[in-house]
Structures are given as structure tokens and as C-alpha cells.
């Protein structure tokens, strides 16, 4: 199938949401809640954050009014799509005593299919990274697989870079290049829609539209270029793998440890962090249920083995986090674990900035 870009209006966007839900998808997208833009169920265009933008900096996130009514005029918020593909809390199995000893039943795989509306380029890269972790190792995570396989991804090319964004320097954005079914570039009241898959092209064909002109496509390229030029942060990423692994005893680790609260916020908001812990809950009927929840390498217990934790100091835990993101990840999965979304900077209560930490270690 050859893919032709088209232009749609707000009616086209409404039709897109409608078509996805008619096709049986649970449509999820950005919406304003508790003074932040989060990802949740979207019933129609009205649920999108029209006229909102965000102000982001180290340890700072504020919503602000825009002087237009753009629907996607902000950067990423505290949520990442991983909360749907790799849920924060998941039931794994249930064990019940029976005459033979015990009976174990695996939790059923979900039947719902997700459509994500408004996936940013950095997030497409983050999903591709989690695909490597959960689908391409010797073992596959059946829970992730079930959620991921049926998903429909509508990307948005960012029109505004956030104050903590640095995707341009990680080569992960701001323009979506792969891994989506459809991608949108927003102009006032209008969108350029480009299909990235047969499913996307088929869906696009059902929407009210007009053919895109060269000028429309040119305009969309200009949006991405403008955004790339206005990144809030920059990461000097070349050679960072060796830089960090050659400097495991650098004094900067002590410096950052003195500021880090070991709260784990960075790992919770990071779209690629995948670590989990299991716990068993016994109920009154005598059965036990095993659940899995997001865990963080910032907790002391994370590395506990009999006799004590492997990483008892905040210094060693921050070092684990950053060397994993930027160095060991490459050894493990052939890709960086950081997509430059900036969430860890924004949501760090003391504003620790991964780009700044790399700069400091590079500096001497």
C-alpha cells in the first residue's frame, strides 16, 4: 500500500477518535487532570488539552494558557505510555490450596486493545526500547506482548519543545520517523496526517480530508525544525558509554549523591525504566495472589541479598541508574536507555539534571 499524506480538520480528528472506538479500541490520549497533562481515556476532541501548554524546568512543572487553542501545544507530562503497556500494578497468578497441594492459575491476558493518541517521537523510541526488553530477549513478557501487539499508535510531531527536552541530541525526535500507524502535525485547526502502516492508511481513508499539498508538507517540516531548534536541554551523547564506565569512581557521584533523595521519581516517570518487584498477598479464603509492581533501583531493598544490600549508598544507586540508562543499556539491548524526554529532570524534586551530570563528569 502506498501512503499518501492528507490534511484533516477538527472534524477529521473527531472522526479519527470515533473510528478507533468503533473499531473496538480503548482510545487514550492527553487530558488535563490535577494541574498536569496526563494520559487517560479520551471520548472526543473536547477531552484534549485545548489551549494549554506547560512550563518545565529542573524540579518544576506548571500548566499555562496558550494564546491559541492548539490541542497538542505542550511537551510530555508525568505519564508515559508504559503505564498501559507495562502497568504499574499487575496480577500475575493466584494459588489456592486444594486436595493435591495447591492449584495455580495464571491471570488472564487483557482483551482490550489500546489506541494511543498523541504519542511523541521520544515516546515512540521509548516503546521501541521496551519492545527490545520485553519481546526480544530469550524470554518474552506475555503481559506486555498482549497489550503491545494490538495497539494502534497515533503520533504527534511536537510543535513546542519543553524546557527539559533533549530528544534532538539523542536522535530520538522531535519528528516521528517510525513505529507509528499515523502521525499528525498540528497547524491551527488543521493537521497534516501521514500514515506509517497499512492499518494507519486504511483508517485515514475513512476520515473527511483533502489531499496534502507540497506546501502543507513543507510547513510540517518547518514545525519540526523549529522545535528541534528550541530544545530546553542538550546532552553531549557521543562517547557517553565509555565516559561513564571509565569514571565509576568519579567524585561527581558523591556530589550528586549529596543532592539525590533516592525518591525514585525519575524511574517512575521514565518511559524506558522497566524494573518490577513481585509481592504475594494472602486473602481470607486461604488463597494467595501474586502481583507485580514497578520497582526502582533507588530503593535499598532493590539489591538486597542475605547479609545486606549490594548498593547500600545513594551514590551507588544513582550511579546504577545513570550508568544503566546511558551505558549498560547499550551493552544489554544495543540501544541507549534514554530518549531525552526530560521527565526525570522535571519530576526530580531537587532538579537533578542528567544532562548536567554528564557534562560535569565530562568536565573533569
Amino acid at each position: 500500500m502506498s501512503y499518501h499524506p492528507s490534511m484533516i480538520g477538527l472534524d477529521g480528528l473527531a472522526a479519527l477518535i470515533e473510528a478507533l472506538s468503533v473499531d473496538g479500541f480503548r482510545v487514550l490520549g492527553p487530558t488535563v487532570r490535577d494541574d498536569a497533562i496526563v494520559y487517560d481515556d479520551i471520548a472526543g476532541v473536547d477531552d484534549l488539552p485545548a489551549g494549554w501548554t506547560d512550563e518545565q524546568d529542573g524540579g518544576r512543572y506548571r500548566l499555562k494558557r496558550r494564546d491559541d487553542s492548539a490541542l497538542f501545544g505542550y511537551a510530555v507530562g508525568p505519564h508515559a505510555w508504559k503505564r498501559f503497556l507495562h502497568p504499574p500494578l499487575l496480577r500475575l497468578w493466584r494459588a489456592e490450596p486444594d486436595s493435591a497441594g495447591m492449584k495455580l492459575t495464571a491471570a488472564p491476558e487483557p482483551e482490550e486493545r489500546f489506541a494511543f493518541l498523541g504519542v511523541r517521537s521520544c515516546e515512540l523510541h521509548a516503546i521501541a526500547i521496551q519492545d527490545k526488553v520485553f519481546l526480544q530477549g530469550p524470554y518474552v513478557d506475555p503481559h506486555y506482548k498482549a497489550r503491545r501487539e494490538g495497539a494502534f499508535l497515533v503520533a504527534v510531531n511536537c510543535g513546542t519543545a519543553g524546557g527539559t527536552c533533549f530528544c534532538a541530541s539523542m536522535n530520538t525526535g522531535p519528528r516521528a520517523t517510525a513505529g507509528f500507524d499515523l502521525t499528525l502535525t498540528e497547524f491551527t485547526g488543521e493537521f497534516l496526517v501521514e500514515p506509517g502502516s497499512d492499518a494507519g492508511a486504511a483508517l485515514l481513508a475513512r476520515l473527511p480530508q483533502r489531499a496534502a499539498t507540497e506546501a502543507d508538507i513543507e510547513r510540517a517540516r518547518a514545525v519540526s525544525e523549529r522545535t528541534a531548534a528550541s530544545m530546553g536541554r542538550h546532552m553531549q551523547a557521543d562517547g557517553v558509554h565509555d565516559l561513564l564506565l571509565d569514571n565509576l569512581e568519579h567524585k561527581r557521584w558523591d556530589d550528586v549523591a549529596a543532592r539525590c533523595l533516592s525518591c525514585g521519581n525519575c524511574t517512575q516517570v521514565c518511559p524506558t525504566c522497566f524494573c518490577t518487584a513481585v509481592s504475594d498477598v494472602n486473602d481470607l479464603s486461604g488463597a494467595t495472589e501474586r502481583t507485580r509492581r514497578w520497582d526502582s533501583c533507588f530503593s535499598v531493598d532493590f539489591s538486597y541479598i542475605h547479609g545486606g544490600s549490594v548498593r547500600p549508598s545513594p551514590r551507588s544507586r544513582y550511579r546504577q541508574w545513570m550508568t544503566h540508562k546511558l551505558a549498560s543499556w547499550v551493552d544489554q539491548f544495543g540501544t541507549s536507555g534514554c530518549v531525552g524526554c526530560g521527565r526525570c529532570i522535571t519530576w526530580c524534586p531537587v532538579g537533578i539534571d542528567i544532562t548536567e551530570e554528564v557534562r560535569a563528569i565530562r568536565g573533569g
Partner: protein
Amino acid sequence: MVPVPFRIAKVIREIPGVYTWHLKSLDGKPFVYRPGQFNMVYQFGVGEIPVSISGDCREPDTLVHTIRAVGPVTNAMQQLRAGAVVGIRGPFGRPWPIDEVVGSDLIFVTSTIGLAPLRGLIHEVLHRREDFGKVVVCYGTRGIDDIMYEADLHKWRARFDMHVHLTVHSAPSGYRGRVGGVVAAIRAAQVDWPSAQAFVCRSETLTRQAVDTLAGLGVTKDRVWVTLERNMQCAIGLCGHCQIGPTFVCKDGPVYRYDQIEPLYSVREF
């Protein structure tokens, strides 16, 4: 991955606080694994822990685990009697590289419970005895009361085609065996050091000490095989707990060639 129920057929009290289980799957299916691999062992309503498989892999109808009671899960498991049912997930991890060491003299270096992960390998080496050169086991314990697998040790010592250097740290007067550290037992071994392959199963500090001793005798670090222990929750490379730098101990280990992980050993709290 859901645990599969196994019944404890037999409990052997090895030494105080250490017990061995012989397990049979409820569905009667054989449990196929290779020496050096481990299972996640689950006690209903208590918890799940990684445990090496300590049996003879040529007897797949009996799964053998030896466990030391050190905390909540292992203490609760110590209370279980024959007939109780536990859950098993596995086998996981990379086994000992037995085919890579064919033709060489083999030296096993371990102490107290460290024999558990090596026992299956020693059994297999003895099944394939003609594939290897000399076979020496250097086994150290604190005292004469914490010698594990006594029946095996007796059998092994009686064989003409292997040597067992059993050494205890302290012994009552009149004890006629070797007294002292494992290091001295290693030095006493008579193997072809320039080609011997060593298998070391001890704590990380003591592993280093053994590796240094072996290196002094001419066993280069690419001929030393060790195991690592890390917190494990999934055992299938997905939960992140067992990471050390580039490797996941659950899927890339727990067996490693020493020279390939030496840098990880030398960084504190890595």
C-alpha cells in the same frame, strides 16, 4: 510464568540449618536441566527464592535442592515435611560449561553450602569420568559439624580416580583430617596448573582469594569459573533486580568465566 507444583518426597537434614529436599512433580513429568542451573522455589503464601539445583541431572525424576535457613522464606521452608507441596519455576540460567573443559584436569574449590551448586557438576563429571584428566575437590568448612553431603564425600574419597581435600578451620583435638583454610588445600592439589580448569563457589570475597591463589599457581583467569548471587524476582531477565553492569545474573549467569566479570568484582557497590 506460573510455578509448577512439586511434592517433597524426602527431607534430609544435612547440618544444622541446612536441609535437602528430594522433589517429585505432581504430574510425574521429568525435570530436565543442566548442572549449574537454578530454580525459583515458591512456598505457598510465604515467598519465592532462587535455589541452585543440586541433584544428578541423569536422574530427572527427582529434583534436588539444598537450602540453608537464613531468613523468612528459608526458615519457613525448613518447617516443611515430606508430603508438603511447593512451587517450582525453572530451570534458569547458564549451566557450568562442562563441554568446554573436556580433556583438562579439574579442580573444584568451595566451602560449606557452596558445594550445593557444584554437586550436580561433580556428579556429571564422574558420569563422564574418562572425558577429563585429574579431578580434585577442595572443600573447606568451619568445623567438623558443618560438612555437607557426607555420604557423597565418603564415596568420592573412596574412589581412586579423584581426590578430595577436605579441610576444616578448627577441629577438636584428636581430629585426624586436614585443619586449615581452603587456600592450603588448593596448594596441595596436584593438577597440571598450566592447563587445569577451576570451578569456584564461595562468597565474593573468598572467591577473589581463591582466584588469586589459583593465579599464583598458574591457573589463568580465563580458566576459572565462578557463580554470582544477586537479588532475583523474575529469573527471566525482565525485572531488573539481578543486574550488574552489562549482565543479568539470571539469564547471563549465574555461572561466569572469571576474566569476563572481574571488572565488576572490583568496583565497590556496583
